[in-house]
């Protein structure tokens, strides 16, 4: 089966008028026609199979939203090609719109001064969803997202969590093949985040909806996606399974040691004392340099220990490391 989303050497360059600063610069701007070019996306090639759930990760300004805008068809690429479910989004925007659903965490597509239910009715009319299918979907979403309680409330009176749940239902009402989620859990409390994650997980599993998730909250990614695409300065720096990135970059682990009162700092070869607060000492070590087993043996032989625990690195720390150090494939670096 061909991939459902495919981009080849996708580029987007924004051109803006060069602006001077101060009175003189401003006056000069009025007359000059000098342009500045900014490469937002600089040659992105990727493909997604139907039913995949991919985390599209990158720092602010990396080009994530620009890529999503090109995939939805509201931005024309400077060069390169895109295919989404057999269509070219910017050339066939309206047809493409029927295949996709979009949720922006920062922006609602619900109608502000109408009760939530009215927004759904409008979307039903826009996408020409048959009544029976609409009712079925509404029932299903009401069950997962618990939106029943506030269907009659005007959107402007909803809490952020309620509004986001409404936005998710709105984006899925017409059974899109693909759904783009741009920072969907931003600003939500833990409970609402969890409801949203469960919803995304279920539509991906039960309906086979392809999901592209851009987020800063890496817990979203850990919970939901098997594959992540890392983008920085408009280029893909990693594309692969989440485990691989963890294996290659998550080599630093921490052994948390709880000591008997008055015990000196624990010591071990090839491990580094990260901190000591009261009786709790943290030892950082590289999995490739020493095994956890060997380290624990050393520590327990030398110190009086009451408790031990092992901490895996969190994804955020790993990704931060990749951004600062750059990603180099260890397999190719070894040769």
């Amino acid at each position, binding site marked *: 089966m061909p991939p459902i989303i495919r981009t080849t050497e996708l580029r987007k360059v924004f051109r803006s008028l060069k602006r001077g600063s101060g009175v003189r610069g401003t006056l000069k701007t009025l007359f000059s026609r000098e342009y500045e070019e900014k490469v937002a996306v600089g040659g992105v090639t990727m493909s997604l199979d139907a039913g995949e759930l991919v985390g599209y990760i990158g720092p602010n300004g990396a080009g994530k939203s620009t890529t999503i805008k090109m995939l939805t068809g*509201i931005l024309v690429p400077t060069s390169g090609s895109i295919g989404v479910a057999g269509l070219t989004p910017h050339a066939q925007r309206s047809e493409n719109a029927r295949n996709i659903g979009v949720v922006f965490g920062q922006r609602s597509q619900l109608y502000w001064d109408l009760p939530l239910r009215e927004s759904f009715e409008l979307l039903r009319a826009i996408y020409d969803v048959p009544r029976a299918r609409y009712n079925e979907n509404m029932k299903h979403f009401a069950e997962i997202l618990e939106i029943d309680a506030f269907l009659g409330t005007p959107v402007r009176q909803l809490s952020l969590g309620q509004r986001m749940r409404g936005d998710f239902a709105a984006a899925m009402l017409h059974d899109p093949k693909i759904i783009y989620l741009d920072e969907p859990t931003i600003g939500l409390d833990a409970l609402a985040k969890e409801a949203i994650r469960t919803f995304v997980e279920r539509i991906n599993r039960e309906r086979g909806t392809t999901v592209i998730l851009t987020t800063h909250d890496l817990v979203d990614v850990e919970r939901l996606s098997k594959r992540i695409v890392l983008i920085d300065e408009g280029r893909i720096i990693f594309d692969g399974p989440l485990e691989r990135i963890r294996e290659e970059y998550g080599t630093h682990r921490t052994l948390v040691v709880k000591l008997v009162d008055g015990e000196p700092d624990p010591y071990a070869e090839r491990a580094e004392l990260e901190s000591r607060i009261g009786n709790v000492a943290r030892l950082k070590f590289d999995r490739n340099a020493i095994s956890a087993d060997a380290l624990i043996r050393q520590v327990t032989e030398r110190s009086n220990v009451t408790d031990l625990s092992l901490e895996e690195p969190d994804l955020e720390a790993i990704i931060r490391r990749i951004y600062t150090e750059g990603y180099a494939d260890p397999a190719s670096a070894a040769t």
Partner: protein
Amino acid sequence: MIAVRHRPLARRLTPYLAFARTAFVRESTYRIDVFTSVASLVVRVYLLRTVWFALYAQNAAPSGIPLHAIVTYTTVALLMSLVLEVDGTRLIRDKMRDGTIATDLMKPISLPVYFFSEGFGQTCFHALTIVPALILALFIVHVDLPAPSVLAAFALSFVLGYCVNFLLNFIMNSVAFWTLETFAIQLIVRWISDLLGGQIVPLVFFPAGPLQQFVLALPFAAIYSTPLLIYVGTIPPAHYAQAMALQVLWLVVFGAFGALIWRAGEKRIVVQGG
């Protein structure tokens, strides 16, 4: 190959009817607005009646229009303004400012038609206020009721004027694609159209000759003046076709210009990212 979905027209119109219905419902939630607009209309009817009575007492029938006709003209003009002052295309400016135009572009709809149906829904609601406003006005002034054929011609001309007005608003609000702000241009156009549209003073009061001919041919006259002059009989049935042909001409010109400006604005968004 591009697969074009052929849908029956009725089904393609469904979303726009839904937009209009929603706009109607939303408008009906602002009840205070309705009372104030009807109340201010009644006050204006009274004021203009006073002005015209005073003017006519000084100088009888300046342009061969009898007093009862001018009072009818003014009152009907005010009633028309209840629906003509509705501007559904303000949405363009609002959506450009808050960025929601992007989510709208991701929907399988025509945005200009969406704005029209939005305005139409609001219009339908405000049209309901015409009846109570007219009843109240009838306590103050006498309004002539022309023959049914004249009334029919007025209605047709009014619909044409409504569409010209929509397109004028559409073009002005589309300026927001470039400036995000449309207040200044709207204010200027408003001043000009108040003066040259014949809403307050019938354009036949302009000195007869080239100036009057010129003002009558402007698009502003197509909105208020033409239907009103048909109503009061200044435009005789023999000239209906000619008068409405001019309205249609402006409709076509504005339609073409509106399409151009929309395409350019849309292109700006999809190339520059808004």
